[in-house]
């Protein structure tokens, strides 16, 4: 692997607090093509700290694209333009020498900026608390093989369950809707036998919590699917809508 650092200009969003006015700060860097974008940030921060300056606040944890902690808008795309990768999986080899890169936080009314590139995504948890579970206590479960589940059904449920809860769908959506996120959890349980008992109550409660948390409506633009780092399908939204419709009928019964 040849090692030639590439030179880049970075425009990074800095914002002191939730209420402060933010702006882009420019950095000129020379970076290894094998480094990830967050490793580049680490290096910038290490240098800032050496100079006694405040490092850029950004969040990340697993750096393997699974924890959903990181989430930057890179050149206008949540998690960058490469399909099916989280921010931490962007490698600098995907940029051209002397390119200018813009890095911003996820922007949505429901995700207020806390500092620099760090946002508050509490709304996503509130939606899950409203119904994203099967009500079963530890100790009361039957044998795991008691209910056979067709391989393709389990696989579809897992496709939906792979959502990492990063909020990129919200940031991508012109309405700041979290419907892709909600529908992924609704679909996982709607597909599985374990989720049937609470199926319609769940979709009602989660959709209501979604709306109350300040997320917008879905108008079928599909930007969410295009930007989702896990490739969660918008067919989940269709499934959720069907269940939501049925649940409204049931409410009227």
């Amino acid at each position: 692997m040849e090692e030639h650092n590439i030179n880049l200009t970075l425009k990074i969003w800095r914002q002191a607090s939730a209420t402060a006015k933010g702006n882009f700060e420019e950095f000129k860097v020379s970076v290894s093509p094998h480094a990830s974008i967050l490793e580049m940030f680490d290096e910038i921060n290490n240098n800032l700290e050496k100079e006694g300056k405040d490092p850029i606040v950004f969040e990340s944890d697993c750096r393997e694209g699974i924890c959903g902690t990181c989430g930057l808008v890179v050149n206008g795309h949540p998690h960058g333009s490469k399909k099916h990768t989280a921010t931490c999986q962007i490698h600098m080899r995907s940029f051209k020498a002397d390119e200018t890169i813009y890095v911003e936080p996820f922007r949505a009314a429901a995700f207020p900026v806390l500092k620099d590139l760090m946002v508050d995504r509490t709304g996503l948890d509130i939606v899950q608390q409203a119904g994203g579970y099967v009500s079963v206590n530890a100790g009361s479960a039957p044998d795991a093989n008691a209910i056979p589940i067709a391989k393709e059904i389990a696989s579809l449920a897992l496709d939906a369950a792979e959502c990492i809860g990063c909020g990129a769908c919200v940031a991508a959506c012109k309405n700041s809707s979290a419907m892709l996120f909600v529908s992924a959890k609704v679909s996982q349980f709607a597909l599985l036998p374990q989720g049937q008992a609470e199926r319609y109550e769940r979709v009602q409660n989660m959709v209501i919590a979604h709306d109350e948390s300040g997320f917008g409506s879905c108008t079928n633009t599909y930007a969410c699917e295009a930007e989702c780092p896990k490739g969660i399908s918008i067919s989940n939204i269709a499934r959720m809508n069907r269940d939501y419709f049925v649940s409204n009928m049931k409410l009227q019964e």
Partner: protein
Amino acid sequence: MITLDSKVPEGKLSEKWTNHKFNMKLVNPANKRKFDIIVVGTGLAGAGAAATLGELGYKVKAFTFHDSSRRAHSIAAQGGINAAKDYQNDGDSVYRLFYDTIKGGDFRAREANTYRLAEVSNNIIDQCVAQGVPFAREYGGTLANRSFGGAQVSRTFYARGETGQQLLLGAYSSLNRQIKLGNVDMYHRREMLDVVVVDGKAKGITVRNLLTGEVESYTAQAVVLATGGYSNVFFLSTSAMLSNATAAWRAHKKGAAFANPCYTQIHPTCLPQHGEGQSKLVLMSESLRNDGRIWVPNIVGEKRPVSEIPESDRDYYLERRYPSFGNLAPRDISSRSAKYACDEGKGVNGGNSVYLDFADAINRIGEPAVREKYGNLFEMYENITGENPYNVPMQIYPAPHYTMGGLWVDYNLQSSIPGLFVAGEANFSDHGANRLGASALMQGLADGYFVVPYSIGNYFGSEKPEKSDVNGAEFKAAEESVKESTDKMLSINGKQTVDDIHRKLGDLLIDKVGMSRDEAGLKGVIKNISDLREEFWNDVKVVGKAGEINQNLERAGRVADFLELGELMAVDALDRDESCGAHFREEHQTDEGEAVRNDEDFAYVAAWEYEKAGSWKLHKEDLKFESVELATRSYK
């Protein structure tokens, strides 16, 4: 002064847990709501415990330093979770899972704990399926299994390469339900910085609110730490960036013994380092070793590209040395073998990596079948390295991964501080000197769903701990000491950054307290780490203020603790003058380079009591093996 009492129940191994559950004191349902419990950490063990305690009717306060409880590092576990279901009809049983685990740990775990782990493993799978965890299935709709290292049966349940994610989201969903029901109060973005001990019992915690910088105290009648392992002491590890030992270490300094700190697992299948700016190492699931074959060139200094190296010039060293287990030899053995091959100069291009080759598997079962099993891992590899592993072999190298050591706990998972329970990777209890693959998820959920909820009830029923005043002297003192240490770090204003010092610590540890250790190296490194700690407290530069979001300050506190823990790891490795599992002392090996245990002198748990920085007192818990015979571990 600490006294160690393992509280292992009497009776036959297979009946201990059942009898113990019967003998434990109960708290009647109406009284449960009078008891407050603090759970720190929301990974498998923490979320599992918080949810289950909530279900039982206790008042739970759960804490995480993340923005959401779903972010805990359990989420990154890839390969699977073991259970003794014997769905494959291949001769598995609770006893076999127990035996494989205790043998895999090189006979340095507590027999009764490990047996209980195997015993409840089946309940875990039932529980997860009931929660709607979409495990892999066969065409007939039954659950699928695969094999992991150190086992000759197929007992690992999985969900593609994202088993940890699915299990954690299951626990997270149960936790969410309890939050919604009002049984659990969830506190996000709080980092635990002290345990508060009142009259000898754990009664609360002190945390820093990571958004405001405020130091806050919370009180309860019991505290559960489920705060994970300490692999990040090595700077580069497979742990998440934020994973740290601070909660466990602060508890240690308050009187909780720290056990077997030198048992640190170096995982054999990780991506090699790319360069200086590397922030962490990426693991490739061990499940890849089901179908991948590990080899190095036979010739030192081999320069030919991999496609031009003929079979005759390849050394499939695991298959050669361990014909029964082959590429599925346990992690410690596989890692050390890779290190030796690279040290000999047989690594890929003479560097630090070996091949993990899927060509045979692709020929045998076809590329689609390989993709079905490992698709997302192959994608991840290609994304990071820019190379397509369907066409060229992967390159891998061992990396610090899991820590078997941790806070000492008795059979009830209670530490040496009454009322302080420790669950999951944060405790030392079940894996001995080496953990087998797919056993971490099993232990986290076993502790969280099925052990701590019982044993805390027993503590309440027998000790009847009172509530403590959150404004009491002990709480105020803990808050003061946290503030003092924060102010001190911010005032040093030296020349080195926190990461600079952390990297230095990591280099020292991986070199001298990594895959192989020796007396001279350990003695030297103890001094070096102690000096580095001095350097930190005199020359570190931490910017920003205490009363704001300050990630630099957060890292500084964690590294300050790593600098003490790192020294204890070396002290423990020096004390343990034998080779066992992941702890390999150069002085104790066979002519063929296999570890040589010394059961006569070292069949004990080393539990260290903190005296002051750089000074510990050793307590030994003798390991008694009533059911298994101590054998030389052989995977040949």
